[in-house]
């Protein structure tokens, strides 16, 4: 069965390491913060200028001057630091963030990603997404494997305007965990009960399937 949003977050959380500085995008990536393994510490970077994002505030703690990149009110964690947008993106662009998790509309077999614009609909802007995908070495893209019409989002080549070219090496979908290299998708794990055939069918880009594809365990 396809992974739930929470299962996707749980699977991603297994990629965390103790002492990681992590930037989590909006949506499923945000949920990863709820599943940091016991005894492990990670620090969340919010690109508006906060390293060490804490939980949402209580009613009493709400402060208009303390928000995250999603414009939500937040708190600071112990050992946080606050800085300018230039410093924040120096961190990001300079490759100092250990892991970036973000959503996408499409990913292709060259590691290119489209996540910010659907022509014809309103252009809202890329925010910090282009900086994040260009700056990080370790990125996990999270999205459904196919759209609601069953069309694959893992393509030979992205059809939408790119957020970044050739920068994605790992994708977690609701069906599978895949790596991208040598211009191909490589199937690494599958969701519990999801067949390799279904993944092959829903992957439009070239897919390499090993003899044994382990099921994720939850």
């Amino acid at each position: 069965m396809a992974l739930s949003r929470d299962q996707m977050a749980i699977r991603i959380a297994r990629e965390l390491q103790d002492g990681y500085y992590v930037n989590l995008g909006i949506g499923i990536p945000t949920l990863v913060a709820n599943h940091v393994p016991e005894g492990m510490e990670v620090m969340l970077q919010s690109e508006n200028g906060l390293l060490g994002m804490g939980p949402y505030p209580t009613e009493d703690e709400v402060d208009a001057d303390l928000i995250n990149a999603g414009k939500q009110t937040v708190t600071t964690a112990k050992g946080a630091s606050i800085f300018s947008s230039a410093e924040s993106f120096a961190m990001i662009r300079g490759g100092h963030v250990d892991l970036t998790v973000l959503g996408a509309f499409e990913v292709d077999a060259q590691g290119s990603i489209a996540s910010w614009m659907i022509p014809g609909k309103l252009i809202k802007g890329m925010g910090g997404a282009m900086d994040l995908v260009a700056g990080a070495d370790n990125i996990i893209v999270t999205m459904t494997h196919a759209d609601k019409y069953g069309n694959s989002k893992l393509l030979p080549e992205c059809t939408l305007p790119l957020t970044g070219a050739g920068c994605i090496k790992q994708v977690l979908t609701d069906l599978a965990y895949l790596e991208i290299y040598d211009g191909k998708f490589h199937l690494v794990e599958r969701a519990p009960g999801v067949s390799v055939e279904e993944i092959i069918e829903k992957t439009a880009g070239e897919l390499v399937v090993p003899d044994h594809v382990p099921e994720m365990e939850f």
Partner: protein
Amino acid sequence: MAGFDKVVNTYEEAMAGLEDGMTVISGGFGICGIPENLIKEIKKMGTKELTIVSNNCGCDGLGLGILLDDRQIKKMVSSYVGENKLFEEQLLSGVLEVELTPQGTLAEKMRAAGAGIPAFYTATGYGTDIAKGKDVREFNGRKYILEESIPGDFAIVKAWKADRYGNAIYRHTAQNFNPMAATAGKITVMEVEEIVEPGELDPAQIHTPGIYVDRLIQGTFEKRIEIRTVREG
């Protein structure tokens, strides 16, 4: 005003000299740390054909969004503009031009303008529509695009406290784009919640040195919250 005292007493004085067609760099992220009252003054002045450089364009009824009502903005340079109905209308009808710029590149363009750096290379946006028409160059096997600085005729920023000399500190994440914006204006206008006397702020803890600030005014702020998220107490 004598010596280094940057304080002005009215918003009219604060924004004096702003003219049609000028470029205004603004601090703020979403509606956090925005120069609310300086923007209101621009609305009152009715200045037109403005190019506004700001990460966002406020939201309905607050921040830069209020400059859309009377079509004061000709062009926005922003990274994200998705919070405003009127914005969408004006964009689709061609009244408003938008130059979408990645957030980190935008911050660096402001900093570069203030720091005398006319252009810099970045990997951000390489291979995307953003790179169109821009120089590409390879360093150590990776491709980068050339991005130019954005200087402003005016910069409008909001800080928490400043001394009369314009030495300022920001509160929490209301810092965001303000320090870079402050360096990027031919005339930089800063509004703050509290003006203190020189010497009251620790020299080593100043976020924006007064050299960047031309006019300083104390105001009161609505500080609306865009997305109020809370947990159980």
